[in-house]
């Protein structure tokens, strides 16, 4: 008896809640609202590394708009898991800033709203970073807008260049030159090293090592992302290039196990000649008062390339205030918003604005801005498993090739493991 009564009360409560929830979502997601200014509240998810500039951006938006955004910061390492859980349980945010390499996966799983109409309606749509635009498209539809950019370049220490008898205004432009310069800098002293990379970090090396391959005319995946090309000759050349430097002893011993945390600190210690990193490191080195220069990452015999990193901004399925979300997403690519980002040292995603907002600040920023324009990104729904996984086939191949020297075998196993992941994931 008691239980029956309780059950009835419970049932009434549940249905009341359900009705309330339906009513709520009906009101706020009405598409007509898109014509006028959006209203109400929306939640935005970003990662902890974006905290400072996202805070300023949301502040700027809230000042000039009727709709109000609320920012939630999610730890970087848990973002994908948290987002997945939230999407599955219907508690996804209204707007999410997502690392662009994940876009094909998120889109392929139906987690994002199709915003093709919004993307195609932008007057400046062709000026947005081409790599970002490519990653946001899945099966012909657009699921996100480019948001922030990041580019990989070669940082070099001008003081060490001078001491080693090198011209600090002439950074290396080929593999051979990097090797030669690294050896000269290593010769300066016991604890001075020529070159460093993060030998146990998959994500670092897709960002910093693939540009060498691209600049030499090679690639790591086929255009459609269905075939791995880790066994191509351009990859061999790039691996041999790193191997040569490791064997010559120009790299510090820590590179073997560096999962990405030591690269910037070693360069900040003023005892490292060259290291590949992104725009995010500029402020660190400026603070450490390092006299550094920035150069494009070269190919084997010249040419340059860069990894296009950064974020895209998307509306997850289940967003409760789509009108406001659409307004925010569109606004975040505007000159006003991109200027806020550039002010915080973030590379803009607008090729028509990058020189004005960002490249004009210093020669280093100019190089980074130019690198953004030519940036590339591998397209694959299993990008994370192949490249970013610190135990994945990509970093395993590099680690084995550079530190043991068995390049042929490393490439063979890397290629077959990467291809297996692609075949499984699609």
């Amino acid at each position, binding site marked *: 008896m008691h239980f029956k009564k309780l059950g009835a009360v419970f049932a009434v409560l549940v249905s009341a809640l359900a009705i309330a929830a339906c009513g709520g979502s009906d009101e706020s997601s009405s598409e007509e609202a898109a014509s006028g200014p959006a209203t109400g509240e929306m939640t935005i998810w970003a990662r902890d590394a974006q905290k400072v500039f996202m805070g300023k951006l949301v502040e700027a938006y809230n000042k000039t708009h009727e709709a109000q955004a609320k920012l939630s910061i999610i730890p970087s390492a848990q973002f994908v898991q948290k987002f*997945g859980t939230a999407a599955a349980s219907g508690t996804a945010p209204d707007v999410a800033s997502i690392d662009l390499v994940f876009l094909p996966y998120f889109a392929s799983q139906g987690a994002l709203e199709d915003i093709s109409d919004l993307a195609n309606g932008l007057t400046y749509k062709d000026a947005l970073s081409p790599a970002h635009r490519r990653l946001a498209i899945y099966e012909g539809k657009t699921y996100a807008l480019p948001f922030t950019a990041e580019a990989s370049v070669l940082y070099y220490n001008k003081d060490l260049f001078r001491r080693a008898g090198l011209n600090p205004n002439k950074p290396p432009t080929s593999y051979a030159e990097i090797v030669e310069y690294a050896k000269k800098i290593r010769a300066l002293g016991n604890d001075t090293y020529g070159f460093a990379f993060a030998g146990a970090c998959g994500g670092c090396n897709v960002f910093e090592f693939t540009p060498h391959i691209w600049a030499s005319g090679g690639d790591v995946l086929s255009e459609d992302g269905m075939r791995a090309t880790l066994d191509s000759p351009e990859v061999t050349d790039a691996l041999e290039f790193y191997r040569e430097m490791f064997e010559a002893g120009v790299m510090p*011993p820590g590179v073997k196990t560096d999962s990405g945390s030591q690269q910037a600190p070693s360069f900040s210690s003023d005892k490292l000649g060259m290291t590949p990193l992104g725009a995010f490191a500029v402020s660190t080195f400026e603070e450490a008062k390092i006299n550094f220069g920035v150069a494009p990452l070269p190919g084997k015999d010249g040419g340059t390339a860069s990894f296009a990193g950064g974020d895209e901004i998307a509306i997850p399925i289940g967003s409760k205030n789509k009108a406001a979300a659409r307004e925010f997403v569109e606004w975040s690519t505007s000159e006003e918003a991109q200027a806020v980002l550039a002010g915080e040292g973030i590379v803009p995603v607008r090729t028509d604005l990058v020189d004005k907002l960002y490249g004009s600040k210093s020669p280093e920023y100019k190089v980074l801005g130019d690198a953004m324009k030519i940036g590339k990104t591998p397209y694959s729904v299993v990008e994370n498993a192949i490249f970013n996984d610190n135990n994945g086939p990509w970093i395993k191949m590099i680690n084995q090739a550079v530190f043991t020297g068995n390049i042929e075998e490393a490439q063979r196993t890397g290629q077959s493991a990467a291809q297996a992941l692609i075949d499984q994931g699609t």
Partner: protein
Amino acid sequence: MTRHMPAAGAAQTATGATPAPPAAARRPPRRRRLTLRGRRQAVGALMAAPAVLLITVFFLVPLGLTFYMSLNQWSLLGAHTWIGLENYTRAFSDQGFRDAFMFTLEYTAVITPILFLIGLGLALLVRRPRRGARFFQSVYFLPVVIGFAASSFLWLYLAQPSVGPLFDIFKALGLADENTNWFANKGSALLVVVASITWKIVGMQMLLLLAGLQSIPVEVEEAARIDGAGRWQTFRYITLPLLRPTLALVLVFSVAGSLLAFDQFFIMTNGGPNNTTITAVYEIYRVSFVQFQLGYGAALSVLLMVVLAAVSAVQLMLLRNTDHN
């Protein structure tokens, strides 16, 4: 984070729940006296209810869900499809999981005796109420209250090439040079992890063994000594057999904890060098949250659970059987 002791809470709640008798089966409701008994049973069931509820919500339901997921192709995002036992057949031919499983066994085989012997040694040291015994009990136990992640980061720093204090000490002693990198070699990387884990949890084992030692009546050992037994003989033929129930408990905890090792390798070695230090749970994490294949990850979890249950059962049986002889 304290993955070495997860069985403790579960075991306690489980024993808490067992007194609930099958009430319906023995209730002949004719006589008044038995009604009283029935009432007492109802009260008993009521008192056990919170524990049953907790187990259901936090153990049985997730367990059922895990098993259901393991029968599906279940991506982190998006829809899932039923594939029956395909995940399980895949697991048996998965070289990555097999390697991870073998490494887990290797790690367990290395660390279990080390923890046990040092734990027992420390327990014997601080057993008698000598001066300072309490102080040293606390000192040995202190690292236990630190989180696994925190202690792993601490040791990662201590053993870091070029910057870690431990590295500096070894360098000063001439046991390392500037090119030494302990994490670049499987053997030395494992050694650093084993050292950190020993430091971290040997105090717990000491405490459990100490409780076991103190439950042995002093008279028994005295009697043995009066009969002319030496120190070693007393230990071998009196202390050790009487300690058996505690030994079983400690070994089951220790082995279960080691088979579930994750944080220490995730943080300190990153699974390297060359993926040689990836444990079973680490592999499950990678499958689920790096490759986004939750269904397959669930299947691997179920397999690991079966192995864990089997190992614990065998251990308990071995130790219990000899106890009855």
